[in-house]
C-alpha cells in the first residue's frame, strides 16, 4: 500500500512537470504573435490619423501624408484577384469533389498542392513573364493575376473539403429527382454550403492581402493614387516594404502604421471566418 502511494505521488509529479513544460513551450510558440502585435501598436499607433487613410504620401522630407494610395490599391488588387481566383478555385474544388478518386482528380490534387507550396516570388516571376512582358509594363492587371494564382489552391482545397462534408445521400436525392449532376451540385448542394465556401474565400483573401513578393515586379507601386488598371498600382505590403527600408523618418512612421493596419485587417478577416464557421455549415 505504502509503496503504491509513493509511486502514485511520483506519477502525479511527473504529470504536473510535463504539463508545465508543454504549456511553456506552447506559450513560446505563440509569444511572437503577441510581441509583434504589441510592438506594432507601440510604434504604429501614434501615426494613426484621418489623413493616414485619406492622403497620398508626400515627397521625401515633407512631413504628413498618408497611405490612401496603398489602401485603395490593395482593395483594387484584392477585387481583381478575387474576380479571377475565386471562380477558378471554386471550379477546381468542385471538379475535385465530383471526380473523387479518379486519376484526373489525383493529378489535379497533386498539382494544386504543388501550387500551394510554390514560393510566391516565383509566382510573381510567372506573372511577370505572362502579363507584364506582353503588356509592356507593370499594371494592376499583372498584380491581380499573380495574387489570383496564390488564391486558387486555397479556395480549391477548402471548397473540396466543404463539399466532402455533404453526405452522398443528399447528392443521390438530387439525382433521384431526375436532375443532371451539374444542376444537383450548383443548385442544390452549393446553396447549403455557402457559409463554408465563403470562409475559404475569406481565408484566401486574408492570405493575399499580405502578399508582397508576387507584387514587386507585377503591380510595382505608385505614389499618386489610382491611375487605371493598366498602370502600376500601390499596395499595402509593397508600400510598407519600400517605406520601411527608406531613410525618411515620416515614411518609416507610415510603414509602422501601415503594418499595424494591415495586421489588423488580416486579424479581422480571420475573426470573421471564425464566427462564420462556428455557426453550423
Amino acid at each position: 500500500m505504502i509503496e503504491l502511494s509513493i509511486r502514485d505521488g511520483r506519477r502525479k509529479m511527473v504529470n504536473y512537470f510535463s504539463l508545465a513544460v508543454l504549456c511553456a513551450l506552447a506559450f513560446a510558440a505563440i509569444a511572437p504573435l503577441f510581441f509583434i502585435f504589441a510592438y506594432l501598436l507601440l510604434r504604429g499607433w501614434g501615426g494613426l490619423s484621418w489623413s493616414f487613410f485619406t492622403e497620398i504620401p508626400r515627397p521625401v522630407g515633407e512631413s504628413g501624408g498618408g497611405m490612401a494610395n496603398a489602401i485603395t490599391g490593395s482593395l483594387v488588387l484584392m477585387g481583381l484577384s478575387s474576380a479571377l481566383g475565386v471562380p477558378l478555385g471554386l471550379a477546381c474544388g468542385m471538379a475535385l469533389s465530383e471526380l473523387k478518386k479518379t486519376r484526373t482528380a489525383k493529378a489535379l490534387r497533386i498539382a494544386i498542392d504543388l501550387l500551394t507550396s510554390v514560393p510566391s516570388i516565383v509566382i510573381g516571376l510567372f506573372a511577370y513573364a505572362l502579363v507584364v512582358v506582353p503588356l509592356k509594363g507593370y499594371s494592376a492587371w499583372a498584380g491581380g493575376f499573380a495574387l489570383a494564382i496564390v488564391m486558387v489552391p486555397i479556395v480549391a482545397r477548402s471548397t473540396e473539403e466543404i463539399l466532402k462534408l455533404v453526405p452522398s445521400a443528399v447528392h443521390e436525392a438530387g439525382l433521384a429527382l431526375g436532375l443532371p449532376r451539374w444542376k444537383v451540385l450548383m443548385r442544390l448542394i452549393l446553396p447549403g454550403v455557402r457559409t463554408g465556401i465563403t470562409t475559404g474565400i475569406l481565408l484566401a483573401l486574408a492570405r493575399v492581402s499580405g502578399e508582397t513578393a508576387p507584387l514587386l515586379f507585377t503591380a510595382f507601386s505608385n505614389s499618386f493614387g489610382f491611375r487605371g488598371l493598366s498602370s502600376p498600382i500601390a499596395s499595402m505590403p509593397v508600400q510598407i516594404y519600400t517605406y520601411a527600408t527608406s531613410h525618411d523618418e515620416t515614411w518609416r512612421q507610415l510603414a509602422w502604421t501601415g503594418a499595424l493596419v494591415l495586421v489588423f485587417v488580416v486579424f479581422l478577416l480571420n475573426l470573421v471566418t471564425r464566427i462564420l464557421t462556428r455557426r453550423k455549415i
Partner: protein
Amino acid sequence: MEPTLESPVSPKLSVSDGSALETKRLSAWFGDHHVVKDISLVVQKNDVFSLIGPSGCGKSTFIRCLNRLHEETDGASVSGEVLIPGAGRRDNIYASGVDPVSIRRRVGMVFQKPNPFPGLSIFDNVAAGLRLAGVMRRNILDEVVEMSLIQAALWTEVKDKLKKPGTSLSGGQQQRLCIARALAVKPQILLMDEPTSALDPISTARIEELVMKLRNDVTVLIVTHNMQQAARISNQTAFFLMGELVEVGPTKSIFTKPKDTRTEQYITGRFG
C-alpha cells in the same frame, strides 16, 4: 408484308398490359462482387410491392438498379433489362441511348435516412425537382408543393412555416418531406429504401398509412427489414437471399404458406 387495316403492325411492346415494371435477368455488381443475381419479376400497376430479406441480400441494390442510381457508385455495373412502360427505346431503361436522368423523373426514390437538401426551405425542397426542370410559374409551383405535401400527410404541420429550413423538421417529418419532394415530379413508380428504419414507431405508423394511400396514384416498391411492415402494407412480396430471388407472390401467401423452406425459415425468424 404491307400492314393491312385489319391488323395494323404496331411496334411490339415489350411490356405487357397492366404491369408497371418488369425486370429480365437483372444482375448487378460492385467491382467483382456479384450482389444481384439474375432477377426476373413483374410488378403490377398500383401494387405496393415489398422486398424482404436479411442484410446484404441485394434488395437495396436491386431497387437502386430500377432508377439507374446503382451505376452512380464507383465500380458498379449492371446487366439485364428493366422494362418500364413509356420509358422509350422500346421501354428498356438500360437500352443504349436512354438517358438515366429521364428515367429518374419516372421513378422516384425515398432513402433510408431522411435527406432534405441542407440550406433549402421546406417549400424549396419540395419544389426543387420541378424548378430545376424549368418550371418557374409561381402559381404552378405553389399548387404542386401544396398537393405533394397533402399527399405526404405533412401539409397541416408545415403550411405556416414553408420558409423554414427543411432540416428544422423532426426526423419523421423530414422523411415525409422527402416523400413529398419525390411525389412533386409525379413519378409513375416510387422506390422506398427502408424508409422507416431511422424513425420512431409513431412516425413509422404515419408513413405506413401514407404508403397505403399512395398506391392509388403510384406504384410503390418498398425495401424493408421489418416483416410485420411488409405484411401490413404490401399486396405483393419478394424474398431475397444472397442476391437471389427465392420467392415472390401475394404477401398473404408468402407469409402464411411459403413454398420455399428458406422463406419459411426466414419469416419464422430462424435466420436473418
